[in-house]
Each structure stands twice: as C-alpha cells, then as structure tokens.
C-alpha cells in the first residue's frame, strides 16, 4: 500500500468495564479496498466496529477517515463523514416499513426524498422493491440483511462496515450477499470492511484480511495468503 489509506486505525484501545476489549488495534484499508476482519468469538471484532463508529468509547488511539480524526465523534455524526456501519443482526427497525427504513438512511443528507438513490438500492435488492410498503418485521433474515445494507447505502458512504452479515443466514443467501458486496465495490468504488466468523466465505470475496485475537491484530495479509496459510487457519480461524 503505497498511497495513504482511506481508513486508518492507530493503536486503538477500548474497554468493557475493567476488561480490555481492544488492545492497540492498528489497521489500514485503502480506498476501494475490501477487507475482512476475522477472529473467534470475543476476539474484539464487534467492539472494533462499534468503536470505529462511536457507539463504544475509545480509551486511546485514533480513527482516521481520509485524514480526518473521527475518534471522539458521536455516532450520529460519524455517518455524515462517510463511514457507515451495518450492526450485528442488521439493526433493521422492524416497526417501520421497508421504504421508511431506507428513507431514514438518507435523512441526514437532506429532508427531501432522494428517489434516485432509493431506486438504485431497489434495483440492487429486488426483494425490497416488492415489499416496499410492508413492515420490515415481515422480512426474512436475508431480506433484512439486504435492507440493512440498503439503508447504509442510502447515506452514500465512502466506507461500509458490516458486522457479520452472514449471521443466521443460509449459505446460499450468505454467498449472494457477499458477492453483491464485492460487485458493489467493483462497480461503485465503495470501500468495504467485513467482520466475519465465517472466515472461508469472507476470505473468498475480500482482497485483504486481518485476524484479531484478544483485541490485537495477530496476523494480516492478502486473503489468498491467509486462506493458504495452514497455521493461521488452524490457530485462529478454526477450519
């Protein structure tokens, strides 16, 4: 990576009470990059994303997006800088309709309806277009994940963070969503950071991977290398 990365994390620390959840995480994601953050349960993956977008306070360290320091920015401002976060389980608001969920994603940009972006998202996820006026609570797991991603895209972010989009989904649906994310990166130049327990699936669509263990980055490399490296696979990824 010769050019300045779009998203840079420098020595990030975070705690849950007295427990250290992030112990100096540093990573860099180039523009148009697509990378995976892997690791076992409790490795700090979710805390890392939550700290990046201000949902969890950082104890020390820095988060830089295109050179701008976002570390102390409250969560509702982070999205305005171009960093979108699809939380674990999607965070779809089940009481609102599909369309309202999507509109919500674009509200910070303007109170006017952004029909152009809405149409793009609907094209990307045809099941959402069919269920436009239904309550989001009636969607299947895969459709909810699509809606969550769609809502994040409505904000027209530069970097999209996803927390286990494969959670609870059938392998085929997972594959479809991961492929779609890669196509999105290829076609729109979106930068994607994918947190996954499903290491094989995540490494198959990303170009770079970071392995987290006990709040530290223990290994990083190209996704192909990580897939080929038996030691890392056995030690941290469990396959």
């Amino acid at each position, binding site marked *: 990576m010769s050019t300045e990365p779009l998203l840079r994390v420098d020595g990030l620390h975070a705690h849950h009470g007295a427990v250290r959840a992030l112990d100096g995480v540093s990573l860099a994601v180039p523009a148009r990059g697509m990378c995976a953050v892997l690791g076992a349960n409790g490795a700090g993956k979710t805390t890392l994303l939550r700290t990046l*977008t201000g*949902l969890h306070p950082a104890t020390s360290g820095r988060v830089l997006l295109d050179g701008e320091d976002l570390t102390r920015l*409250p*969560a*509702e*401002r982070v*999205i*305005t800088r171009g960093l*979108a*976060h699809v*939380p674990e389980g999607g*965070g*779809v*608001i*089940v*009481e*609102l309709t599909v369309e*309202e969920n999507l*509109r*919500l*994603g674009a*509200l*910070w940009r303007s*109170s006017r309806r952004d029909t152009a972006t809405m149409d793009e998202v609907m094209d990307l996820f045809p099941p959402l277009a069919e269920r436009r006026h239904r309550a989001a609570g009636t969607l299947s797991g895969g459709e909810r994940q699509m809606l969550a991603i769609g*809502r*994040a895209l409505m*904000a027209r972010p530069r970097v999209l963070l996803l927390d286990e989009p494969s959670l609870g989904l059938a392998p085929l649906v997972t594959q479809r969503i991961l492929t779609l994310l890669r196509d999105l990166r290829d076609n729109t130049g979106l930068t994607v950071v994918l947190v996954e327990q499903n290491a094989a699936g995540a490494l198959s669509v990303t170009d770079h991977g970071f392995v987290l263990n006990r709040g530290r980055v223990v290994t990083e490399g190209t996704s192909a290398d990580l897939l080929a490296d038996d030691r890392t696979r056995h030690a941290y990824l469990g396959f």
Partner: protein
Amino acid sequence: MTHFVNLTLNGLASGAAYAALALSLVIIYQATRLVNFAQPALALISVYTAYTVTQLTGSYWLGFAAALVAGPVAGALVERVVIRPIARASELNAVIVTLGLLLVVQGAVGMVWGNEQHALGYAFSYVGRFSPADAFALASVAAVAGLLFALYRFTPLGLRMRAAAFHPEAARLSGVSVGLMLTVGWGVAAFIGALAGMLAGPPFISPNAFDAVFVFGITAAVVGGLDSPFGALLGGMLMGLAMSYVSGYAGPEVATLAALAVVVLVLSVRPDGILSRPTARKV
C-alpha cells in the same frame, strides 16, 4: 333515551381530556419506556401560566396560547435537566424522579400562586347538553391527534422520532440525534398535556387540580395500551363514557370505582391493553 344521549355526549367531552392526557403519557412511554408521573406537573405549569396571562391581559385566548407554549418549554427542560442525567439508571429511578418532580412542582405552584382555588374560565359556555365547551374539547383533541398522526407518519422529523423511539442505536447509525428527538418528544407530549390541562382544569384550578384527572388519564393509557397512541385515544373515550354512564345511572360516588373496574376487566382480557401489539420476547 335523552338521558342516555346526554350521558354519551358528556362522556365523550370529558373523555377528550382523558384521551389527551393519555396520549401525552404514551408519547413519552413509547420513546423512553417511562411512565411520566410528572405529566400533571407540566399541566399545572401550563394552566397557571394561562391563569397569570389571562389575569394580566384579560384575554382567555392569550392565556390559552401561553399555556400551549409554557407546557412544551417546561417539558423539554424537564427532559434535558432532570431526566437525561438519570436516563442510564434503572427505569424505576426515573419513575420515582418524575413522582418527586410532581410533588416539588405542586409545592412550588402553591408557594407562588397560593394553595387556594383560582377561577379560570372556559373559552365557551359550558351550560346545557353538549355545550360549546364540550364541542371545543372534542374538536381540539381531535385536531391535535390528527396533527400528531401527520407529524409522525408523514414528516422527516416524525420518521426520525419513531426511529429513535423504536431502535435508538440504529437511528444513531443513520445520523439521527436521539437525544434531540427525546427532547422534542417531551415537548410534544407536554403540548398535548397542556391542552388536556386547559380542558380539564377549569373552572377552578389549584395545585392538586389534576390529581383525579391524571388517575383517569393514566387509566385510559393503560387500558388502551401504553405503547399505542390510538389506544390512548380509545382508552380516553372509553373512560369518559364509562364514568359518565356510571355517574348518570348509579351515582357519581361510584364513578372512581367504575374506573378501577374497567381496568380490571380490560387487563384481564388483554393484559397489554386493547390496542397494544403483543411483543415477542427478545432473546
């Protein structure tokens, strides 16, 4: 038969005030899962402001307008200054704090304006069956309920407020300032509470003027379903009608008893209230 019609019309008119009060409770409950026992305190501040302004200017309507301004301002202040700092503590804490706030405001109102009753007139004549005052009560509550529905359903602010109430974290990630939405919600609730106060308070106001009305209002909210605005309206009307029939046919002394009977009846059939959606347990 005329007796029945009269009782029905009376019941609907007094039900309007209960419905407004219930609605103000539901708005806050939806957003924060807090039953706001300070609601009568906010209504007190509103009607005493109206009383003072009316005394000074001689105009009922200026007083009425002042009440509708003072209520939301007081509501927003209470949220920011009193409720916000304890929002992270247990829900019971907040309930106790709102109860305490009610006592403090009642005491303060007594110190400023005195504990005796003050006369605060109606906008319209209240004599006769379905008086102009009754019609005004029904119409104003209907108008406010309609506006509220439009606000929540059709405006960007309403969408933000709903998102903040249903799923604060997802709302924040979408760029919604949840704290601001809570303050606005308290303001809106206190606006409706101020209207309820102006309908239920007169002809006489005193620091304890809303105690009984509040009991009926909270009963209406519980009966209708604490997280359903439509339930609050329905519950308010039901309470108004029930009280009116009971005091008309059986005597006013058993009316309060009837309120409790309604609660027991409704909640034994629908434990979450009439219009409340059954909630799936989160695992």
